[in-house]
């Protein structure tokens, strides 16, 4: 059973890159283009991890986090935040006020994103699809070597 992740970002390129990386690692990934769409997806089917951008139209990152935390079923949902904006200020506020697990600065490395996600899921995610396991194995053995 692969973990489900919800990605939320208004930049389609970023969305595609992250989705590509995570789904290749065996996670089930859904995408949303802004905070409001993300919230609707969460309500429809609760993910196990939320990765969201900070600046989005209609409902921004903090707005989405607030809704998630205030809704009892999702109050404990792990959240990762991506942002291109003032990193340090955001980090403090995000962690303190919204219980965000980690804040990742853009430009980000998809590899590092994957590692963070795996740490959050405690590496249990490796028990997923075979390609994912293989990829994981390659990752842990040779972190920065491209596979032939």
């Amino acid at each position, binding site marked *: 059973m692969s973990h489900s992740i919800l990605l939320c970002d208004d*930049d389609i390129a*970023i969305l*595609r*890159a992250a989705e590509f990386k995570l789904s290749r690692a065996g996670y089930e990934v859904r995408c949303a283009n802004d905070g409001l769409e993300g919230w609707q997806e969460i309500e429809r089917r609760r993910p196990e991890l939320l990765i969201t951008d900070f600046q989005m139209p209609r409902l921004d990152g903090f707005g989405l986090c607030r809704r998630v935390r205030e809704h009892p079923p999702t109050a404990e949902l792990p959240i990762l935040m991506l942002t*291109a904006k003032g990193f340090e200020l955001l980090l403090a506020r995000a962690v303190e006020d919204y219980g965000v697990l980690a804040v990742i600065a853009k430009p*980000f490395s*998809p*590899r590092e994103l994957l590692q963070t996600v795996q740490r959050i899921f405690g590496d249990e995610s490796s028990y997923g699809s075979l390609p994912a396991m293989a990829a994981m194995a390659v990752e842990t053995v040779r972190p920065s070597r*491209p596979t*032939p």
Partner: protein
Amino acid sequence: MKDTKARILLIGAALLTAAWPLSWAVGLIWNLEPTRGLHYLAMGFTFVLAVGAVYLWARHVARRQQQAQQFFEMLLRSEPAQLARLAAGTEPFPLLPSNPWFASAQEFSERFAQNCSKLQQAEQSRTALEVRMRRGTGRQEQIEAILAGLAEPVVAINAFDELILINPAAQSLFEADEKTAAGQPLAQVLHCERLVDLLIEARRRKALVRRCEIELIDDEGDSRWFTATCCSLAPSEGDRCVKSHNGHGTQNGHGKPAGAFAVLRDTSEAKAGQKRYAEFVSAVSHEMKSPLAGIKAYAELLADGDADDPKTREEFLAVIGTQADRLHRLIDNLLNIARIEAGMMNVSKNPISLHELLSATLDIVRPTAAAKRITLAAEFSPLYLAVLADRDLMMQVAINLLSNAIKYTPDGGRVTLRSKAAEGEVQFEVDDTGVGLGEEDRLKVFERFYRVQKDRHMASGTGLGLPLAKHIVEDVHGGRLTVQSTLGKGSVFTVSLPAAAQLV
């Protein structure tokens, strides 16, 4: 002369008067019988002579008095020049040296002449002083007028920390009235501790110039920043004894400043400018990080070999290319805006045909419009319209407006480019059947990096196209760029430019 005559006559009369008893005595001695007739003759003769002598003497005395009277009348007429000549001896003195009052009259006239000349000098110096004072007053009025006209608040205190000057700008800033504020203790009028402390310190320490930043809340509740420059006032010449306004006087020791003054310079604009600049830099760096994030992410995916098949690889490489282009456009637009603002743009304005420019622009954007099946229409004025403009820059404006119109108009819509002549102006406008702008967006649409949230999905953009166009039209060409819009129906962007002389 008369004196001598009178003396002689007097002596003669005395003798003749004495002659009668003398002749009687002689007759007695020589036993002569004096003739009664001769007797009476001698008596009468003597009497006449005596009367004559007395008369002459009386006249002489009267003449002296007359001279003295004349002298005093002359003094009353007070002609100092004449008196000076008299004193110097160049003019004949009205009194004779024989006149007993002669010496005192001479001395008196000397003294009088001296006093008159002293009076004249005093008069002259008084006139000079008056002139100087009037000039000084005029100067003071000038300075007061300058102080009153200054936009910078100026306040000054005396040696007792009482306000002696508060110009109109300071009055409005500190909500003080000149009449009531004058003479008041400083701290009562200025409710800013830092400024009060600074002024007092400046007064205590001679020739000290101190600057500080202070923040004041003005009468509208807004916060305004000032740089205050405080300096001590040098004691003036007449300030030996300085009186406080409540009447106590004290000696102002030498070398102690007689007060201090402060000039406030409003730095709110500068501070706001700094803040805007900081925000701009932050916004720019944020905007740049998005395309960079895309480039880095896909480059890494490619490097890690995550792209298994050629199709995916191509897709990733294409994204990298697009993002790089996006970054490039962003940087170009930013540079253009920065250059225009700094006045560093190489602008060469020439009289150009507006229609020629607009036609060329239409040719450039036609493929983009065709891709969305948008109808591009041109409605040009029948007149020949010439504008004094930089062709490249104005073309950039037209391209920006047209490509915006195409971007935010759904497929199958219509974009019309119109030109017309108005009074002294030449106008062209881009009319689209696109998504339109709400009132709030319409007002903000020319701000840098502003992109209407809900329409972001329609097209990529740097948010700098319209600000750049506005700069070019308004700052470089002295025209106007305005927008009218109906949400959901479309927008019309209008560029107005001053008309160049008609070319035949």
